[in-house]
């Protein structure tokens, strides 16, 4: 190990890039642990995805105004999540101190913690009881806290309130109720598609597959981290989607849907039910003509097989890079960012789901975001995606299996059996 190897690795990666002319990666697998106390005060950097609303900058300005000697500087990374992860990983592998605070997707915690790229945070300095517990779990690796939950996210069932009311049915709690409700609406609206989620072969498919399995009472991994996707419950979950496609409950073209394609279809009035994140609320409610369904929809918790369903957790956590300087300042800034006033301002500016439970019960906020109580319910019953050190491989295996089953390339039995074997190898 050491500096020489690191240099070798960095140039080797450059070599790959030269050979490919389109790829770049760096790297060394590890280094000495810098852990222990979080010390040092001074300037820190904050590496994050795109600050689309400008509110991050606003909060950082607020912090900088009162901390003249502990300035925070935002470093915006590319918009795509994969590219963000890659940049952070590359930085960690060359042990660069360029990034101090890292804005991590909830599924990256295990990888960053296990590689010692981020340091353990003092759990007693965060009032974790006030946070939504599923969100806190996403920030932990092997029961230790490696990040602070900042944004959460849960899936919601968007439905056309006008059409359900006209047909005289209530929002469904189970998959059977959903199909029945759709049949009732189809009597007058024969062209409408019943249901769609995110089924293109990408991270969204993992989210939707996990939801289907969890909502049927199954699990992807059990509490000890062992894969259990060959269970009858998991099969029942996947089969709801498979038969949904076969029977036309899910429109055929939904296999190409990511979030945005589905949102366009819902806003064009092509869908009765749509599994989607909270961000769709504002966009579908716009009255400037971009949405045909403004004022005609509402949200409900996701349906399950026999009772209420269970969402997959999304969101982002902030962690401190093991190689960054001034970790004490970084910790203070994270505390500031996860505090109530910051989270409130974030919710108002970005409509991203907060992690503090109290904000979901705030009457004033509910007035502005009527879906908050439903979202809280969704997040509280939500399940995380597998917390795997090699998460990239795990999610690809899941996408491979789910896509094969949904497109009819494999039966759900075979797909799940293959997936079980693959996960056993990856999670051992």
């Amino acid at each position: 190990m050491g500096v020489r190897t690191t240099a070798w690795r960095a140039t080797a990666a450059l070599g790959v890039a030269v050979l490919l002319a389109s790829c770049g990666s760096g790297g060394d697998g590890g280094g000495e642990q810098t852990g222990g106390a979080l010390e040092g005060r001074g300037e820190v950097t904050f590496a994050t995805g795109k600050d689309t609303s400008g509110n991050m900058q606003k909060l950082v300005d607020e912090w900088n105004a009162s901390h003249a000697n502990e300035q925070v500087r935002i470093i915006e990374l590319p918009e795509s999540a994969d590219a963000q992860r890659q940049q952070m990983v590359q930085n960690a592998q060359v042990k660069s101190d360029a990034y101090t605070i890292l804005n991590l997707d909830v599924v990256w915690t295990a990888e960053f913690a296990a590689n010692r790229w981020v340091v353990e945070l003092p759990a007693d300095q965060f009032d974790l009881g006030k946070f939504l517990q599923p969100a806190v779990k996403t920030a932990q690796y092997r029961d230790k806290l490696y990040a602070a939950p900042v944004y959460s996210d849960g899936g919601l069932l968007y439905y056309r309130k006008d059409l359900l009311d006209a047909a005289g049915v209530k929002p469904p709690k189970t998959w059977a109720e959903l199909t029945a409700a759709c049949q009732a609406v189809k009597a007058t609206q024969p062209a409408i598609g019943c249901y769609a989620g995110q089924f293109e072969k990408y991270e969204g498919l993992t989210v939707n597959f996990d939801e289907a399995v969890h909502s049927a009472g199954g699990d992807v991994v059990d509490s000890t981290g062992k894969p259990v996707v060959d269970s009858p419950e998991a099969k029942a979950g996947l089969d709801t989607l498979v038969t949904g496609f076969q029977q036309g409950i899910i429109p055929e073209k939904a296999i190409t849907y990511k979030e945005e394609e589905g949102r366009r279809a819902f806003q064009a009035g092509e869908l009765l039910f749509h599994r989607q994140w909270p961000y769709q609320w504002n966009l579908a409610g716009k009255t400037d003509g971009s949405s045909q369904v403004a004022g005609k929809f509402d949200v409900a918790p996701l349906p399950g097989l026999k009772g209420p369903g269970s969402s997959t957790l999304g969101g982002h956590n902030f962690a401190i890079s093991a190689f960054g300087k001034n970790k004490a300042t970084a910790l203070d800034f994270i505390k500031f960012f996860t505090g109530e006033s910051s989270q409130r301002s974030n919710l108002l500016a970005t409509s991203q789901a907060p992690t503090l439970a109290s904000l979901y019960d705030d009457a004033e906020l509910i007035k502005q975001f009527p879906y908050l109580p439903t979202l809280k319910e969704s997040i509280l019953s939500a399940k995380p995606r597998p917390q795997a050190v090699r998460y990239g491989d795990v999610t690809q295996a899941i996408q491979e299996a789910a896509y094969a089953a949904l497109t009819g390339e494999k039966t759900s039995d075979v797909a799940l059996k293959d997936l079980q074997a693959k996960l056993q190898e990856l999670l051992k």
Partner: protein
Amino acid sequence: MTAVAHRARGRAGSATSGAGRLAAALLSPTFVVLGLVVGYPLVAALRESVFRDGTDLDESGFVVEGSRFVGVDNYTAIFVGESAARFWNAFGNTTVFTVITVTLEVLIGVGMALVMHHAIRWRGIVRASILVPWAVPTAVSALLWRWIFQADGVANAMIGQQILWTTEGWQAKFAVILADVWKTAPFVGLLVLAGLQIIPNDVYEAARVDGASPWRQFWQITLPLVKPALLVAVLFRVLDALRMFDLPFVLIGSRKESVETLSMVAFDEAASLRFGPAAAYATILFVYVAVTALVFVRLLGADVIGAAREKARK
């Protein structure tokens, strides 16, 4: 100015013994730069391809650090075992894309060049409009085509059917080929046009006097005379197509069997932090490209450097 030129000319003419040394000294910066930006990374990538990072976890869940020397294991793992199917699929896709797209691009590109060459009115507009696709960055044009090929997109509206272009199957291959041909046929056209413009007009006049039909003129005058330029264009396109990455990656998506190319496999491995196997894939692709180029130059006599030297001498 003139004095300097005089002195330089004088030295080049008389002192032939010192010329070699001077040339070496003058060229040495080039060799240093080449060694740094091409040689060293290449060697480093080769070295990386015989190592593999540890992925095991210790008792408390931390990754056991360090990479170990695995010899040719990264290479054998590509050809035998479970990744073999993925490799050969990607190899097949890369080859099929290259053969089909380059063939179509040559046919269409030559047509475009003839049109550009013979356009009398609006010559500038015709040339500019043909070259527009080439000027669009590949990733951007891939986004554009994805918009055309989406479920409710222009393509489906035009044919009046609902084909899910971005799903696995022949339609995904077709979409990639169409988008690639659209984008790079103008490139072939441009190079062929350059070749057409150096054919002297009197050759055609003589042919007309002898009563040769336009068809015969094309086969016996235009094609043989434009061949050097055409071969260079084809060689460039073949080498480029073998490295195809951004178009299928953006248009169809990653990990889609129907369109996965060798570059995409290498990228995917690197993104999964398996740099050893990634470097091995990249090296194999490099060898494939190099061998193809060699065979091409030998068989078809595409004299890339020679032609340039010849031209420079004139």
